[in-house]
């Protein structure tokens, strides 16, 4: 039984959430990112579905990594990912139908989200299942984080609300949970449409780069003073 050290765990998570963030650093898997990030609820739902698919597929890929000949690893990985996504698609259709109605067409797209295959090939195929699942969850959460921030920005700018559509997830009773951040707002169509996603993502990437550059400058200054 291989255990994971606290240090390794921290490193994998930091990589997924910040250093190698899927959305704003690797810029991978943008198709669902741009399509579904028009509200927080949509973004979070698809993000969590992606985390789940990534964890399951990385775990599965890692468990069979020693049986898969190198030449056919990609078809086998794609097969595993596609099967898992279809299982999740059917399960969501059966058990959480309202969310399925919103996300339905995007769930199969998780298969084509290259970040899932990228993590399977770049990490899971070379590491122990435990590490692989943690890496997948970290990467997925990093993507979810970007999705939710993007969803929040676009929803506030586009509709003046937060958490609209939450009743689709938690039932009619959740309707009052919708926050009207900007009352009497008439909406800003551009933010809801695809260009809004590109603009908001661009801003996020810029913000991330700025924060990173500032942190590096501080480290260099501190080193110079020492």
């Amino acid at each position, binding site marked *: 039984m291989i255990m994971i050290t606290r240090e390794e765990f921290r490193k994998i998570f930091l990589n997924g959430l910040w250093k190698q963030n899927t959305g704003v650093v690797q810029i991978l898997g943008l198709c669902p990112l741009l399509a579904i990030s028009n509200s927080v609820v949509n973004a979070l739902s698809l993000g969590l579905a992606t985390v789940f698919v990534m964890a399951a597929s990385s775990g599965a890929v890692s468990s069979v990594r020693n049986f898969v000949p190198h030449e056919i690893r990609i078809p086998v990985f794609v*097969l595993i990912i*596609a099967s898992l996504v*279809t299982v999740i698609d*059917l399960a969501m259709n*059966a*058990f959480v139908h309202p969310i399925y*109605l919103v996300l339905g067409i995007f769930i199969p797209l998780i298969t084509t989200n290259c970040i899932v295959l990228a993590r399977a090939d770049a990490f899971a195929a070379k590491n122990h299942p435990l590490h692989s699942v943690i890496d997948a969850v970290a990467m997925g959460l990093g993507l979810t984080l970007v999705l939710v921030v993007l969803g929040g920005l676009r929803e506030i700018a586009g509709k003046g609300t937060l958490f609209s559509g939450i009743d689709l997830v938690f039932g009619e009773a959740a309707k009052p949970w919708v926050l009207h951040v900007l009352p009497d707002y008439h*909406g800003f169509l551009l933010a809801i449409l695809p260009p809004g996603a590109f603009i908001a993502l661009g801003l996020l990437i810029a913000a991330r780069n700025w924060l990173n550059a500032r942190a590096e400058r501080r480290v260099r200054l501190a080193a110079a003073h020492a």
Partner: protein
Amino acid sequence: MMKASSLNALRTGAVLLVFSAVGTALLASTFNATRPAIEHNEQEAKLALIRQVLPSTLFDNNLLGDARSLPADDLLGTRKPSTAWIARKQGEPSGLVLEAIAPDGYSGEIALLIGIAASGEVTGVRVTAHRETPGLGDYIDIAKSRWIEQFRGKSLATPPGSKWKVHKDGGDFDSVAGATITPRAVIKAVKSALDYFVRHQAELLTPHPAQ
């Protein structure tokens, strides 16, 4: 040398075959396990939509069991067969729900579900699919505004045919300034569906369910 490489190819193929077989088995069993729940959900969703256009006081039959296929018709805007659900109260036909399409929306077709009582009065209309501009033409969707509810209680006699237009064109229906193409298409489609109903009423509202 040749032998080793062909053996290797065979082994690789076998591995791929095993993975495909496991994947297929997984999918087949999940499909079977979830099918009843999925079918139930789809029926429920359809019925929930139908209940929005046809008040439940108007029927006591199993609507989904009394569906019939209608051939494509210009008045319904359909190019493929559509479905009509016949409502009955104590066995007597009391109305129906039609699928119709408004072909001339701002960005393509608008799919509608129209409930009509036996008297020829509209009991409700819902948009089931559209690609109208978000925030502009999408107020025909009940999720965005109550605009679509103004059809309830209307018939070919009230208002008269010449008034089945938006206010801007001299008719009786509201619309949002700057987005009149969409409501025009919907109003026209609902009126044509009523024309269709009047023309085919006798064959649609038969005393006994179609076999």
